């Protein structure tokens, strides 16, 4: 059993966690970051660049900068394969037990694998454990896992990242459909929130498809196109020309003769169906799988959507020296997550400052 002491412990090594470590370093505050997996970078590691004629501001490339800076900052120590299993607070200090996770042999040069059970004594803790993509199997009607050619937007992303686009029959599809809000804006699932990033994410991918496979027709099933920055509003009219925007939530995706068949209502309210070579489900962002355990461990509330941190001002007030950064707190994009980590880091620093002052006066 090893014992480490640090002003701040960060749980989660995705962009938010790494950013939090860097933000603390920029403030001169040392930290220890514990990532349960073998590598830093989280889900963003699997995201591809979606620039076509120009950068679309997705921010996926920022991971490179972050990791490069992280490597050069002596204030931040990174531990991989380290899972927080227990935590208790004593005398204003969190004692968090990290347990080593099985090594799958994918070591990250920036992180040191946790060798043994370790207790970290930290004055503040930042939870940056990310999100869980909605499991589209819960929306049986969209055919995921049953209908060939139906995939998640993340799976499509991985494919596009390899420069490949194949549909239900293993061939480049003549048409691609995106179905938005799968798992978002859905009272029947209890997910009564917009996942914020999916419109931009899907349309950026649509742009990539139109660039790489110009003959492919793209249809975008949606309810409302969400904003994504000023240049986005300028780009939307062009997208509307290149892509078929259908304002309707499809009723069902079933196996058709030539690929997945999407049934939806036309502008006249009449049901119709169309077959696509590939259907991508833009699954929403849901609270991290560990949200329940962490909220219990750290005595932290969850907001009404189930994400960590109930009070909007939590990142400042930081009850008990626990702060939340990135998508663990709610759906947000990559750049937003990076910046959100600055708020958590700033708040953590303030809590150290306050604790220091109290100690000096006490």
């Amino acid at each position, binding site marked *: 059993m090893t014992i480490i002491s640090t002003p701040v412990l960060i749980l989660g090594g995705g962009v938010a966690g790494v950013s939090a470590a860097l933000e603390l370093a920029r403030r001169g505050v040392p930290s220890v970051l514990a990532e349960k997996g073998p590598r830093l970078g989280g889900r963003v590691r699997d995201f591809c660049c979606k620039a076509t004629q120009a950068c679309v501001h997705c921010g996926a490339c920022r991971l*490179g900068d972050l990791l490069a800076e992280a490597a050069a900052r002596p204030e931040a120590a990174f531990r991989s394969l380290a899972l927080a299993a227990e935590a208790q607070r004593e005398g204003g200090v969190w004692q968090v037990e990290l347990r080593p996770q099985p090594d799958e042999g994918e070591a990250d040069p920036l992180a040191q694998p946790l060798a043994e059970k370790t207790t970290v004594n930290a004055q503040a803790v930042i939870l940056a454990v990310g999100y869980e993509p909605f499991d589209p199997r819960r929306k049986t009607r969209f055919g995921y896992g049953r209908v060939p050619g139906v995939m998640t937007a993340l799976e499509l992303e991985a494919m596009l990242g390899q420069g490949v686009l194949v549909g239900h029959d293993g061939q480049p599809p003549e048409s691609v459909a995106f179905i938005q809000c799968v798992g978002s804006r859905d009272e029947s699932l209890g997910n009564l929130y917009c996942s914020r990033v999916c419109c931009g994410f899907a349309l950026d991918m649509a742009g990539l498809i139109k660039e790489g496979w110009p003959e492919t027709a793209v249809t975008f099933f949606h309810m409302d196109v969400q904003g994504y920055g000023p240049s986005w509003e300028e780009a939307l009219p062009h997208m509307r020309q290149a892509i078929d925007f259908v304002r309707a939530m499809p009723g069902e995706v079933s196996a058709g003769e030539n690929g997945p068949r999407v049934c939806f209502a036309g502008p006249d309210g009449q049901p119709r169906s169309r077959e696509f070579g590939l259907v991508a489900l833009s699954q929403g962002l849901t609270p991290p799988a560990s949200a329940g355990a962490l909220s219990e461990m750290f005595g932290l509330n969850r907001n009404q959507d189930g994400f960590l941190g109930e009070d909007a001002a939590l990142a400042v007030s930081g009850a008990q020296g626990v702060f939340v950064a990135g998508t663990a707190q709610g759906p947000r994009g990559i750049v937003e997550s990076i910046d959100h980590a*600055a708020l958590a880091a700033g708040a953590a620093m303030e809590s150290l400052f306050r604790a220091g002052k109290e100690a000096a006066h006490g």
Partner: protein
Amino acid sequence: MARVCLIWVERPGLEGLDPAEVAKRAGLSLDPGGAIPAAVVTAPEWAAPPAVRSRLAGKPAQWLDLAGEVGGGPAEKRLARAAAAVARAAGRAALGTLPQVYTAQPAQTVLVAGAGLAAVAAARQAGLLGHPVILATPFGRAAQAGADDEAEEVSLLAAQLPAQVEVLAEAELRHLSGAAGDFTAELQTPQGAQLKRFGAVVLAPAGGYAPPELGLDPELAKPVADLPPEGLAGSPDKWLQAAVIAGVDAPATADAFARAVEAALALQARDFVQTTLLFSEARVASEGGERRYREARQAGVIAARVAAGGLEVAQGGRLLKWRDLLLDEEVQLRPDLLAVAGPVAAALPAFLANPVLWPAWPQLVPEGPRFSGGRTARSGLYIIGALRGTAPGRARRVEAAAAAADLHDRLTQGRATPVPSVRNTACASCLTCVRVCAHGVPRYGSDAIVCAPAACVACGMCAAECPAEAIAPPGWSNPELIAGLEAGLAKSAGTKAVLFACGQSGAQAFAELCRQGHEWPEGLLLYPVPCAGRVGMQLIMKALSSGAAGIMVAGCHDGNCRSVSGNLRARLRAGETAALLERLGLGPERVEFLHLASNQPRRLAQAVDRFVSTLG
């Protein structure tokens, strides 16, 4: 010329390379220990053992991330690649190094000009980080906020301002120039005007709401924040009709939509008031936005989607007409009450509107992923809150926190902020550098170019464009770059090609490919540069004349350059060089620019393979 030694630091990716053999091939001696005049180290500075770092303090050392340059393939090939990279670095190390000369210490005081949550939060954070802060507010006290901020929250935060924060009441920022470490600001207060020097400046002017231009009668149409008195209600026989407009010409921002929904809810809650919410897209991408939108519908608000630009406004808003998209029928409404939601906005400070002194807004505040968190292209200047269109609340706190940390880092981490060296003997005061530097580093002093002490990001655009070779960030002058280029090309085998790779994109992608064991074409010399913008025509021509058959420049995608236009400039120069080659009959295909992101290694590998194969 100093004799250069190779200091071998073993790193993942360097396995199987024999240090002695690499040194021999590169024409260096392997570190004999003890005092040495100059060195190439096979690791980035942060990864080298402390002993090596202290040994080399003040020495001309080239910290080479060799593992990010070699790649995979047969041992012989990897050896050749390593030797070329080491030779390239040695070429520069051999020139020795200039001691860093600081013309001025960066000023540490931070100016926060503005009011409201963003301003107070930024002042507070910067103060906590130990900076003296002047919070110049247009109001009588720090706690006062613009129309777009929650007054209570601002008061709460203002009450917690640390002692380092000095509040300058009723102050106006009249003039601003300079960059990080050396801003000059003219502040007008009731006590008179004062000129002060600041290390960093945060602009966070008080904001308000900008109502959309719909030809509405201001007597009828009120901002959503300004709803009619509570008592106003209809009767069972005569319901009052209220309308709330939330972005019908162009979709509302999520923030404006949320405020419109709140207003609609408030109106609908009154007795016998029927509220219709008009919008073109339901922008629910805000925390709790979807929930409140549903709440409003549940309360009885009629959600009316109008095609963008499809709202017909007559009689100043007393008659509204639109087509109901679901029924495909015309609908009209004569509202008794009308509330309008617009995006947050703040007036552009007058000095920023001066096109001679300040770049246009899109160049100053580029909308790229590298300019979030309040950052602007001008080093040390942060624009946050309403002026940037940032939604009230947490998003402004985020910006304030990010800006404070960034400015602190910039003003205190001397090693990260080199000051360009200017050879005044060569300088013709043509102001090219002043013009091309996006970060505002060089400015014309009384008789020479002077550089802000904490502003340079070493993109090297000044050096690339300076016709007199008079200015360069330390380590990136033409002689240094060319020495490396020549030395590296001399050790490259086969068909020689140079890949100039931007540190934000190309070089990162290259290193990633090396980690994956990618085998690079023989004769390819990687030349990492801080920004593609450093690669001017001269460097390209020099590479060609030093034996390279082709030059590829890999820079960021449009709109993703840390220095705003380094990528575009590089592409322009590559194009010009290619055109010149064509005129000379040498073939324009020898020079190519590649747009790239750091996470596009595959694209880089394919482009390089294709490029090199065409060189024959």
